């Protein structure tokens, strides 16, 4: 279950006339952690959305194992897991329900989903908070719940957008360890961050400035 997500010369933006990113190419490989860095507004989220199939590039392509990623539904089917920047948790659900619902929605049986939910919340240190509503969690707890949900899905590609921004050092390390574990499991992990320390633990780093990208570390 190892795969490669390749971004080839994409130009992407939110309106047709202006592009946020121009002619960007990068490859996320199975077993590796790729950091996407850049100042705020540089386009990290935009790139991850394009990789997640949620934003269609105006030119160039996003492919997984040579097959283009058509849209988000297609990406989901091909197990491209996306942890969005602001968690994307449903506020009316509890932390546990958020994980459980998405697991079942992705085809896990209810029984397995229950077990996996408990495990993944445990792994981010939220075993106690499983029954709490999202809005009753602290910002960092919400972030960890979103990570737990992403990890529970055991994706082929894991796109994590600023998942450590609200965490203390201990928890940040725990999350980074978990992402590393994902890579070790064989997933291609992409981590958007402006935290240099987080970027440092990655195998490669793509730096975005003014809509262009530069691979500052790792192989192209």
């Amino acid at each position, binding site marked *: 279950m190892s795969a490669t997500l390749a971004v080839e010369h994409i130009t992407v933006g*939110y309106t047709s006339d202006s592009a946020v990113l121009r002619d960007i190419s990068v490859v996320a490989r199975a077993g590796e952690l790729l950091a996407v860095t850049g100042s705020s507004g540089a386009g990290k989220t935009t790139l991850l959305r394009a990789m*997640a*199939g*949620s*934003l*269609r590039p105006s030119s160039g392509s996003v492919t997984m194992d040579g097959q283009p990623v*058509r*849209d*988000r*539904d*297609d990406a*989901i089917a091909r197990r491209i897991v*996306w942890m*969005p920047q602001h968690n*994307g*948790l*449903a*506020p*009316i*659900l509890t932390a546990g*329900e958020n994980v*459980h*619902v*998405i697991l*079942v*929605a*992705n085809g896990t*049986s*209810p029984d397995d*989903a*229950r077990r996996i939910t408990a495990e993944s919340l445990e792994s981010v240190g939220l075993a106690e908070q499983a029954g709490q*509503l999202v*809005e*009753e969690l602290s*910002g960092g707890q919400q972030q960890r719940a979103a990570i737990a*949900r992403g990890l529970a*899905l055991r994706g082929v590609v894991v796109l994590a957008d600023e998942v450590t921004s609200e965490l203390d050092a201990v928890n940040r390390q725990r999350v980074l360890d978990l992402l590393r574990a994902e890579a070790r499991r064989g997933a291609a992990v992409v981590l958007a961050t402006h935290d240099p320390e987080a970027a440092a633990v990655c195998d490669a780093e793509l730096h975005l400035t003014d809509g262009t990208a530069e691979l500052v570390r790792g192989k192209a």
Partner: protein
Amino acid sequence: MLRLVLAALRYRGGATLALFLLGVVAVAAGVAVPLYTMAADRFAVESEFRHAAPVDRSIAITSQTPVIDSVEYSLQTLVTEVRESAPQQELTAITGILNRGIALDSTQELWSASPLAVRPGACEHVRMTGKCPEAANEALVSTSTLSRLGLSGLDGEFRYNLAGSPEPLILRVVGSYEPELNTDRDSFWAGRPQLVPQPLRVANPVFTPIQTFETADVESIYATVDLVITGPDWPYEQLGDLRIDMTKAAAENGYELNDGLPFLLRNIQQARDRLRISAPLGAVTLLLLALAILILAAGHLARGRQRENALGVLRGTLGRHRFFLMRGPTLVVLLIGAPFGAAAGWLLVRALTLTVFGDEGPLPMSWQALAAGGVVLFLAMVGVVATERSRRSGPLLEALRGVPPRQRRTGLILDFVVAALALAAIGQTLFGEQNTTSAGVALAAPILAAVTLGLLATRLVRPTATLLGGARLRRGRLVSGLAAIQLARRPGAAQVVALVVICVALVGLTADAWDRTAREATAQAVAQLGAQQVLTVAAESRPALLAATHKADPEGKWAMAVSRARLGHGRTMIAVDTARLGVASGYDTAQLLRQLHPPVNAPIVVQGTGLVLETTLLEAVAPTPVTAVLLGPDGATVTATALIAAQAGDQAVEIPVPACAKGCRLAWFSFERSPDEIQLKGLRQSGPDKVLLTGPAMASAARWRASFDLASEVTITAKDDTVSLRYRPADTRRISRDIRLQVADAPLPLPVAVVGPRELEETQEMSADSLFTGVERPIAVVRTFDSLAGVPADGVLVDLEYTDRIADSVDNAAELQVWLGPAAPDDAIDRLQAAGLVLVRADSVAERAARGRLSGDGLGLRLQLIAAALAVALALLAILVLADTDRRNRVAELVSLREQGLSWHRVRRVAHAGYLGVVVAALPVALVACAVAWWLAKAHLSLFSVAPPLLATALVMMAAAWWADHRVARAVAAPGLTAEAGQ
């Protein structure tokens, strides 16, 4: 600052619009309630006034006034005197003269007891042929009087014996008249039975100008001053004082006072009271609902803004500015909406008065209405500020994250208060006195119960749905699980449940109350009218009425003759053809017949062309005329006079009665003076000859009686097979020239059935009454009822035939009716007219019920109806507002679920199960609340009348919810999520 506020308004356009509408509706309700209540009150008064009998709308003053200088002067003096105690402009004074007397033809054999009346303007109130009398001794005579007197056409002359005047008048007929058909409703006549011209009535008044009296050399006249209330806009509060003043003046000056004003006053008061009880309830329901919904919606808008506010705090925006940012938008919207609301409220009431009351008169905006609107606006603003403050006071971080506040203690207190109120009201309904049957009042407890259940549902819906939703999710049922969880945790979902429950219950209750009012109005109409259809008719006499109904309906299956008359002390008498009481429902005719129509002396029936009176004169006197009064087979009066010759000894006096070949009932013999020396020995008829009474039968004391008005002055002696009578006037100034030997063929005392307590049968409380007219006659209560058909509250039921026989009069001044039962044929009216009756008016239960629905409870209920309709409209708006403020969050939530892999068709179903799910979940609770409310309201529940409005309510609510959900679904539906959705 204003720019900031306006920007904030624009930001949530839909919700702002809805809030605006809610504000408009709330203020409109506030304005409409007093406006409608006032309009309804006016309508109720007007309607009572319009339907009041003329006698109830006037004070009739009669005074025997000496003529000093001129008749005119005497009249003027009286009017001035009366006006001193009744100066009100709203009272029109109709001044005239009404003198008793007898009109006689030239032979002096044909007569009519028509009063001689002076009444300026009378010519305009009858259908006249010829001209209106202007000069002395000119007369306007009714056609029925003319034909009785044997006068045909105009320019005839007749003699008029004015009571109390020695010299007869010779009057010349210059015009003849027919009464207008609605004459008994014409207040011009002030409800004076002697004066009101009636079709077929022989004793209709003879009208003459005042000059006749001026030249007639009379010592005194019976002057009449009738104070008539001409329009409904009368300061009824003054009536009490006016009556006291008038009564005092009457006692001081010796007037005879006759008025039905207390009846009118009582009816108006009752109508107003019932309105006062029932109207505010609907109004208060509506107002409270409008306010509650408004505040609820405002609260949600504020929640939408709490993030902005929190950001404001962070950025250090001035408190004052934040105040405007937070509350400004809502308050501005409410303020802008207020004038529209006032206008809408006015329009609503205008539409109602036009359609319901048919009242096109002006509808001025009253200050009470504006004040009520202002109060509602103020309450709304205070409520909004208070809710927004509570929204704002939470922790800053939670506000930033958009965390909804937990259940507050104030909410629980509110629930508790409502529940306590409901319990109190329920207790009152279940165990309190059952003396009020008002549908309006009966609604209070059920409505409160429904509100309580609604609030209870709000409390229960959350835990239940959470449990259920959690269970569904655990079993992998995502759609139903998420739907249940939405119901549990969506902000406002619980309130929507409460709204649906309250609205549905309100609609159900109102529908039932509406239905019930209709049924009660029908029942009341039946009780008031007495029968399915009641015809007011004119007939020559009461026996003529009886005869005509028997002719039209020989088997007695559908028509019953009834005569109504107002008695003293507020009672109304109905004299009926007792054997036909089956036409009115609910009587044991056979028993009543035994009680009210016991066997008595057989009437003396002449079936020949002459009546022979065998007499003995003890000594020679002047020839004495004797008049026989009989009633013909069709109820026509037959009178004939013969002279008893002067010589002493036996003498058979033949009185020719050619009209009696088919049979007449002898009513009385009348002598002009006391026949002291005449002994009556026997009674025969001629052509064919037949002995009617002789010997002991003739001389039986029980066979004869004196007329009631001379009962103490006339002595009847029956002995030695002869009867004689002697008249000794008690007051030599008032000497009667109508000394009667009446045939006793009716029970005395007259048996009556009355509405009242059983004790009336034992006590002597009701032992005499004047019945149709004149002095009191002995009566005996033989039966009591809780209610009598046609006279439910204050009735006296008597047998028409017997009561007529002791009326000592052939006049028909009382109101004559024919009651038609359900078996009446379609051409019933035609048949009755063919039998000789003149139709004056027809009243049916249906019409009367329709009128009943427009009075008291019915009027109040209309407000309740509007309250229910508006409550539904408001609830719809509230659902839309909630949905609108919540939409952004729902879309974001569903989009992120989709982004994480929840498939589109599931997301769509979850979206569609949003508010629709809430409404659908609320419906069973609503039905339970409805059932409880019905039970408390002791509803009769005709499915036919309650099901359609309930169904409609449920459907529109579901439709609104569906639409709100559909908008969410559409926003989430962006194909493949290739672009940011939901923003």
